[in-house]
């Protein structure tokens, strides 16, 4: 007669875990060891360069040689140029506040509480008015700073936010127009979208900056920054419109029919029923488009705007800090990373929230 064996001892603890995940077979062990050495070597170098051997203060800058660590003194010396571009030194506090205003506006518009047809426009118009007033000045004793002197991180964030805020309603309009039941409207907006999408962004921005002034009377030209932002927004809208159209198409036909049968007016069918579902369905692509747009803002350099990337280049361009380009680019990369990573995490949070069924 067989005796029941006692259950096997539960195998837990860090050693068992290590063995199961990293040393299960001989080649697992080899991989583990090789990569452990590699990772240690890279980390050791990076930490040594970025922290241990780094030179932080400008007064120690003569220690910045090729075999020393990172020379962060360049950030202390040139940080303001990178963050503010050509904005006048004494007025840079305004640029700081303006930048914070836009960041707060962006964060607030990410909160579902503000997603209503009444609150979003108020928030956006208020935020942008505050930004432009602060940056431009010309009231209450503030010196006028024209948009040609705006620059650095404030300009990058402003361009991104403005493109998004102007581009998103445009995208909604384009998407709705393209699926309009009137063939003339559907066809012509289809054509506009396809033309814009087949042009390089650079061409569009050049046209806005250089060609438009030749063709359009001066009174309605607006300034160069405005034209560039609008052109960029149209570019964004053409792509985002197609994303939204996909979202609208993936919303079941019955949703629109139910809303119509309930006697809801067309604007409400779109705003209350179709668009919320279209945005939910296309959230990953929309976040993707926002990330791409944020990174593409650096292209405005070419038409003479000193956004953060161009300001970074200027910081190392005059020879004095010419050897510290790696440090400056690492600094720039960190700035981009904070924003783009933030956007991605926000997207992930929204998706979880929607999976749980809320709004």
């Amino acid at each position, binding site marked *: 007669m067989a005796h029941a064996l006692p259950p096997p001892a539960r195998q837990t603890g860090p050693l068992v875990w290590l063995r199961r995940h990293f040393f299960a077979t001989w080649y697992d062990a080899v991989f583990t060891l090789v990569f452990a050495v590699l990772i240690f070597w890279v980390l050791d170098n990076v930490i040594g360069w970025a922290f241990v051997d780094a030179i932080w203060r400008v007064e120690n800058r003569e220690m910045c040689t090729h075999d020393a660590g990172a020379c962060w003194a360049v950030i202390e010396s040139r940080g303001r140029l990178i963050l503010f571009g050509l904005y006048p030194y004494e007025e840079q506090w305004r640029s700081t506040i303006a930048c914070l205003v836009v960041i707060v506006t962006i964060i607030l518009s990410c909160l579902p509480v503000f997603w209503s047809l009444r609150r979003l426009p108020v928030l956006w118009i208020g935020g942008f008015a505050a930004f432009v007033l602060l940056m431009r000045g010309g009231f209450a004793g503030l010196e006028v700073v024209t948009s040609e002197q705006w620059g650095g991180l404030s300009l990058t964030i402003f361009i991104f936010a403005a493109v998004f805020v102007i581009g998103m309603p445009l995208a909604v309009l384009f998407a709705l127009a393209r699926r309009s039941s009137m063939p003339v409207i559907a066809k012509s907006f289809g054509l506009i979208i396809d033309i814009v999408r087949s042009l390089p962004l650079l061409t569009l921005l050049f046209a806005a900056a250089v060609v438009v002034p030749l063709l359009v009377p001066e009174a309605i030209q607006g300034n160069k920054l405005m034209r560039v932002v609008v052109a960029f927004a149209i570019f964004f809208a053409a792509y985002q419109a197609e994303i939204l159209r996909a979202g609208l198409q993936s919303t*079941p036909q019955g949703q629109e029919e139910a809303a119509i*049968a309930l006697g*809801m007016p067309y604007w409400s069918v779109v705003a209350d029923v179709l668009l919320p579902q279209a945005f939910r369905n296309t959230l990953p692509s929309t976040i993707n488009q926002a990330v791409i747009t944020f990174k593409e803002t650096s292209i405005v350099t070419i038409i003479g705007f000193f956004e953060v990337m161009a300001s970074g280049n200027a910081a190392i361009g005059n020879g004095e800090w010419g050897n510290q380009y790696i440090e400056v680019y690492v600094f720039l990369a960190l700035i981009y990373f904070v924003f783009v990573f933030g956007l991605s995490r926000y997207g992930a949070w929204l998706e979880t929230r929607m999976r749980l069924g809320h709004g």
Partner: protein
Amino acid sequence: MGEPAIAIRALDKYFGDFHALKGVSMEVAIGETLVICGPSGSGKSTLVRCINGLESYTSGDLRVLGMEVGDDTRVLDRVRKKVGMVFQNFNLFPHLTVLENCVLPQKRALGRDRSSARDEALNQLAKMRVEMHADKYPDQISGGQQQRVALARALCLKPEIMLFDEPTSALDPEMIAEVLDVMKDLARADMTIVCVTHEMGFARAVADRVILMADGKIVETGTPEQMFSAPRNEITRAFMQAVQS
């Protein structure tokens, strides 16, 4: 007898080359419960969808409560406020709670303020016995519950006519009865009802008349009794046998 709730004369409808409705004429009296049945593709859904203008028709005449349902969007708006509709797939708005599903149309279609819309919504949800689910999202409740919410949502607008387009076809068998029960209550409360369904038990219990459609035409009309026990038409006989077996 006063004006009929719905009056349809010689209605024709084409989908491209396909002749979906072939000169359909019928009337529905106020307070009447009419059941439309027939094999799939017979045009019964299309007919019902023409009544509230979800589908346009090619020629003929269609009046609801005396209003001509045609191309005039202002008239269509008025018609839709008087005519509620329940669909096969419920079509609740998935991004809104059960309560918001009922509140939003009242605000948008009738301009009711939030608090009275909310009171009415809770009232109708209670009548449909789903008020305990008011704060859930549609995907958190069963199909039978969703369909009763859809009915409550339509009733919040105080329609004079209710259209049902196969309201129980997408339901699991054990949930069909709970939906039919509330529909029967509605029929007994003298709501004017046009219902496309194959649930002959429902027809027998509350229908004043049954219409059988086939191939875009009305084949036979009669009281449930006539249609079930003494159908005159060969198609009706075959169909009744098929759905009752």
